[in-house]
């Protein structure tokens, strides 16, 4: 096929591309679909279920058939509609859903077995045996029926997200949208105009209709020039507004680089969140077809698409074409094709008594009743008054009328309403607030009406916002009447396709009706009508009409389908907006991160934080060697650990102590200035929530800490308590987690080391005893906070300095402590040390444990009201007799596995005999074996007992002895020296 004359392609720019490995050429301005047609490729894919040969059906985003895989390697992209894929040089495309070559698809045998694949066949055929579903039926069906395949590689491209705010968002850049944008932008409003196509004009680009006696493209060009001069108007091409969300928020995808040979240089696509005070929906209309027998052959397409290919892209799928119509619009296609030199073999009009509008044979009161052509249309059967005849044609345009694109008006469950004049569903009054449909999307698609409607609706939207807009002088438009009659499908015995993509035929709808799947929602699920990538854009209304005919009800009484976002498929990558991999969530670095990195630390993620896990030294080949060394260094010398990540909240005010009394289960108000107390928080339902330390820096000033994981949540809870529960207390809160770097200095030599950095303070045991705190200065005048607290069970401190000094302080402590054996330790050693000491952490404070289980029951004061205190005493919680215990293997080399469940020695191992479970386990270099912590029924009275720790998942069973959870210094003498 040679090109027709004219069109909006750039004939000076030739582009090469491949389809199924064959090299073809097209021009700039082509879509993959138009370029394939220009190369006489009509067969582009196989249908979903029956593997019927399929061609290009439409010229836009509604395409049900022409789904292809684009590109290769990691960029392979399945299910791309050839009708909206812009051609670029080097484009690679492949057909999908076939076994073997496209023209000899082995699975075409499915078509012969179609009686077995009728509506609901999944539910009927593959019921039993039940076990076969997962192993046999589903994999087989998935392989045979389906769409494209994934590359199984990570997406190499970049995606972005952006935010826009405007007075008016105009969705669609056709006649109505352009008039709306012009009206609003000239009035000075902030306007965003978004269109899914690569160039503005919408349907005008596909028509020969004149504006002011000149081609419409001239008017568009003049508008674009004016648009470029208006700073308050943002024109977004290749941008699909895919959804309406609450409060005037619209989701849009801009395909920034999909049309480039190499999309990897910049951003591939951008997800836009557009907040618009008002929006005009000028999304146009989608043509519908008229189902008849064997109406799915390549070469049979929407008449408006046939016209678009001829006018915009200068291609036609055949030299000799026919038109099947129920309206005047079909005749316009015939006229336009003849003007391009295409032979029109006939216009078959279901209306009786109509006259030809050009020089072509007219069959009035007739229908197309069948077609032939194995891999592409060759003949059609025309039936009039019971007489049939076959005529030759290579393409057939079907014009069944136009459905307004009401999709976005239904995104908030608004129901389209039936317009008996337009014979279509138009937007209802219950659409999203602030969204007004205009032009063809509102059922006013005739060109002059669409232009006027766009301008009027924009002015109306601005008037709502108190902005006055003058209606612009609009060009005089050539008339384009529709003259439609209701005619929905050609009855017959053979299969007539309603939904091309899902292989749903009129017969399937008849069957669904017989089986009482009559409500629209049942019809959809029973037949799969309207599912998958096109969401039934060319099928839904026709299916409703067929069902209406079967039930004898009107179309509106039969129902309507509503739509959910997205309007067209949106890639998950762009919904992620680039927040993948390292960018999935923020990474927080501790003040000593770079110092630790330079020492070769291995890092682990704790919440958003990157924390040093351990610091391997030369010669250490296993992490355990490093961790054991770090643990022992703390027990005999001094270790340094960055504990900045613990949440820190500054609490100030005259009522600060009273406030903390209500927040913590234990009493805080009796704490003396300069002292620290362990604090336990409960949830309001009585379970343990979080723990930390409370330091009283002054009468009205406390510094409290939280666990790393709960830092944000506890702060939120504290603000809730302050603002909502006790607003009359004089107390202020601020999170200072990031403001202070905090370093744990732990071990028998910690005092000796700290004495080398503090300026004047007395750190002797009497001068600064266990659980003391102070604000002081170190390193010649740097303000710091010092807390004598211990997580390891050793003599220990935590020293805090403004965050920017954290790195330097760590360096200084390491230098000054060299002779004392100063050793950095990471979270792994920290964990071992706290298990050795029997301190609860996240594994124990997991939302299922009570204060009593943790051995802290007596801390919950009954003398005051605090969050969760009362509920912690309720029946059930108070009756829980599980207690925290220590566990060691009966033989030194035995294993302790966290998560294993505990059973009495010799007892049957069932849910009923379960005695508890192991929460934490580690190898203890201090004990010389593995150790564990766990919750055990009556655990406080079972010391010395041998238990069985069962790990049935891995077939493990270990004999463990119950011991005190304090493996190190149970009396606490080391803390107090």
């Amino acid at each position, binding site marked *: 096929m040679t090109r027709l004359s004219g069109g909006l392609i750039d004939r000076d720019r030739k582009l090469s591309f491949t389809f199924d490995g064959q090299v073809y050429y097209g021009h700039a301005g082509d879509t993959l679909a138009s370029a394939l047609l220009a190369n006489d490729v009509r067969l582009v894919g196989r249908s979903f279920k029956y593997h019927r040969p399929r061609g290009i059906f439409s010229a836009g985003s509604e395409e049900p058939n022409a789904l292809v895989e684009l590109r290769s390697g990691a960029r392979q992209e399945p299910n791309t509609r050839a009708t909206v894929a812009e051609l670029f040089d080097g484009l690679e495309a492949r057909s999908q859903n076939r076994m073997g070559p496209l023209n000899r698809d082995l699975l075409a045998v499915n078509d012969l077995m179609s009686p077995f694949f009728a509506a609901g066949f999944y539910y009927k055929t593959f019921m039993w045996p039940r076990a076969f579903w997962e192993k046999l039926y589903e994999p087989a069906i998935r392989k045979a029926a389906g769409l494209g395949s994934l590359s199984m590689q990570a997406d190499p491209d970049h995606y972005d997200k952006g935010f826009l705010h405007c007075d008016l968002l105009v969705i669609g850049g056709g006649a109505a949208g352009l008039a709306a944008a012009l009206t609003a932008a000239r009035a000075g409003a902030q306007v965003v105009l978004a269109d899914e196509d690569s160039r503005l004009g919408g349907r005008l680009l596909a028509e020969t209709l004149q504006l002011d006696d000149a081609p419409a493209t001239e008017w568009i060009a003049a508008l674009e020039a004016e648009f470029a001069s208006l700073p308050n108007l943002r024109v977004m091409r290749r941008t699909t507004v895919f959804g309406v969300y609450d409060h005037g928020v619209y989701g849009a995808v801009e395909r920034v680089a999909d049309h480039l040979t190499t999309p990897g240089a910049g951003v591939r696509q951008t997800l836009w969140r557009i907040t618009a005070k008002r929006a005009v929906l000028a999304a146009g209309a989608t043509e519908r077809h008229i189902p008849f027998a064997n109406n799915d052959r390549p070469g049979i397409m929407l008449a408006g698409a046939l016209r678009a290919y001829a006018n915009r892209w200068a291609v036609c799928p055949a030299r000799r074409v026919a038109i099947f119509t129920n309206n005047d619009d079909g005749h316009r296609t015939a006229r336009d094709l003849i003007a391009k030199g295409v032979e029109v073999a006939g216009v078959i009009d279901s209306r009786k008594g109509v006259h030809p509008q050009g020089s072509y044979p007219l069959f009035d009161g007739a229908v197309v009743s069948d077609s032939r052509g194995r891999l592409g249309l060759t003949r059609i059967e025309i039936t009039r008054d019971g007489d049939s005849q076959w005529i030759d044609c290579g393409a057939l345009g079907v014009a069944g009328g136009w459905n307004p694109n009401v999709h976005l008006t239904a995104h908030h469950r608004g129901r389209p309403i039936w317009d008996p004049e337009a014979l279509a569903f138009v937007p209802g009054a219950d659409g999203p607030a602030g969204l007004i449909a205009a032009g063809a999307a509102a059922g006013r698609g005739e060109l002059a009406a669409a232009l006027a409607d766009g301008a009027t609706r924009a002015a109306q939207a601005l008037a709502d916002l108190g902005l006055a807009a003058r209606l612009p002088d609009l060009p005089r438009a050539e008339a384009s009447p529709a003259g439609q009659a209701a005619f929905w499908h050609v009855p017959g015995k053979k299969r007539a396709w309603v939904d091309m993509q899902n292989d749903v035929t009129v017969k399937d709808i008849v069957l669904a009706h017989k089986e009482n799947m009559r409500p629209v929602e049942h019809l959809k699920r029973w037949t799969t009508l309207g599912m998958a990538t096109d969401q039934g854009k060319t099928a839904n209304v026709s299916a409703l009409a067929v069902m209406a005919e079967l039930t004898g009800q009107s179309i509106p009484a039969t129902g309507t389908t509503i739509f959910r976002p997205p309007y067209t498929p949106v890639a998950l990558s762009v919904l992620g907006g680039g927040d993948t991999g390292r960018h999935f969530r923020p990474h927080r670095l501790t003040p000593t991160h770079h110092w630790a990195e330079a020492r070769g630390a291995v890092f682990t993620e704790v919440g958003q934080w990157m924390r040093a896990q351990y610091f391997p030294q030369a010669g250490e080949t296993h992490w355990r060697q490093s961790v054991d060394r770090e643990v022992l260094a703390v027990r005999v010398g001094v270790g340094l650990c960055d504990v900045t990540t613990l949440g820190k909240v500054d609490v100030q005010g005259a009522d600060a102590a009273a406030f903390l009394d209500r927040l913590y289960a234990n009493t805080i108000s009796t704490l003396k200035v300069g002292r620290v107390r362990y604090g336990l928080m409960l949830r309001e339902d009585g379970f343990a929530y979080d723990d930390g330390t409370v330091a009283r820096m002054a009468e009205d000033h406390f510094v409290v800490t939280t666990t790393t994981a709960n830092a944000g949540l506890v702060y939120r809870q504290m*603000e809730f308590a302050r*603002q*909502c529960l006790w*607003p009359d207390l004089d107390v202020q809160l601020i999170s200072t987690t990031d403001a202070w770097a905090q370093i744990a200095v732990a071990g028998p030599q910690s005092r000796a080391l700290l004495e080398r950095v503090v300026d004047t303070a007395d750190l002797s045991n009497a001068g600064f005893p266990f659980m003391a705190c102070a604000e002081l200065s170190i390193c010649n005048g740097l303000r710091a906070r010092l807390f004598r607290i211990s997580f390891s069970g050793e003599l220990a401190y935590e020293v805090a300095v403004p965050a920017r000094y954290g790195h330097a302080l760590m360096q200084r402590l390491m230098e000054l402590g060299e002779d004392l054996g100063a050793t950095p330790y990471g979270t792994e050693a920290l964990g071992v040390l706290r298990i050795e000491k029997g301190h609860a952490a996240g594994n124990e404070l997991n939302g299922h444990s009570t204060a009593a289980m943790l051995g802290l029951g007596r801390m919950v004061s009954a003398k005051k*009201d605090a969050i969760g205190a*009362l*509920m912690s005493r*309720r029946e059930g919680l108070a009756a829980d007799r599980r207690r925290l215990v220590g566990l060691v293997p009966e033989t030194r080399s035995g294993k302790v596995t966290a998560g294993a469940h505990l059973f009495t020695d010799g007892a049957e191992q069932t849910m009923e005999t379960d005695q508890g479970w192991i929460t934490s386990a580690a190898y203890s270099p201090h004990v010389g074996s593995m150790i564990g912590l766990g919750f055990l029924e009556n655990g406080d009275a079972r010391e010395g007992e041998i238990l069985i720790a069962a790990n049935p998942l891995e077939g493990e069973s270990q004999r463990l002895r119950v011991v005190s959870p304090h493996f190190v210094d149970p009396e606490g003498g080391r803390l107090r020296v």
Partner: protein
Amino acid sequence: MLIPHPLLGPRDAQEFTYLGDAMMIDRPDGLAEGAEAAFCDYVFQRDNPAGLHRELWFHEQGDRSWLVVTRNTVTHEILGAELARDVALARRATDTPADQGDAQ
């Protein structure tokens, strides 16, 4: 969604975290007679209205104020937002339950 913050104007809902029914402002007195029954209701019982709902939102990515937002759970229309602290203080002054009362 946009939340009309009484101090900061309309803010994107993504800046907020949601808690639930504003009745949580009405915490019972834990030392009162029969407090356990009151707490069981307070902790576990919630209405689930189709229509107007007064609920607590925390402006976590903003000024850290807790708001009482009046929202229509059917349409997601937001009819107003108040500082929860103001609601709580008014509640003390007038004894009006926090889940009732007018939106601003």
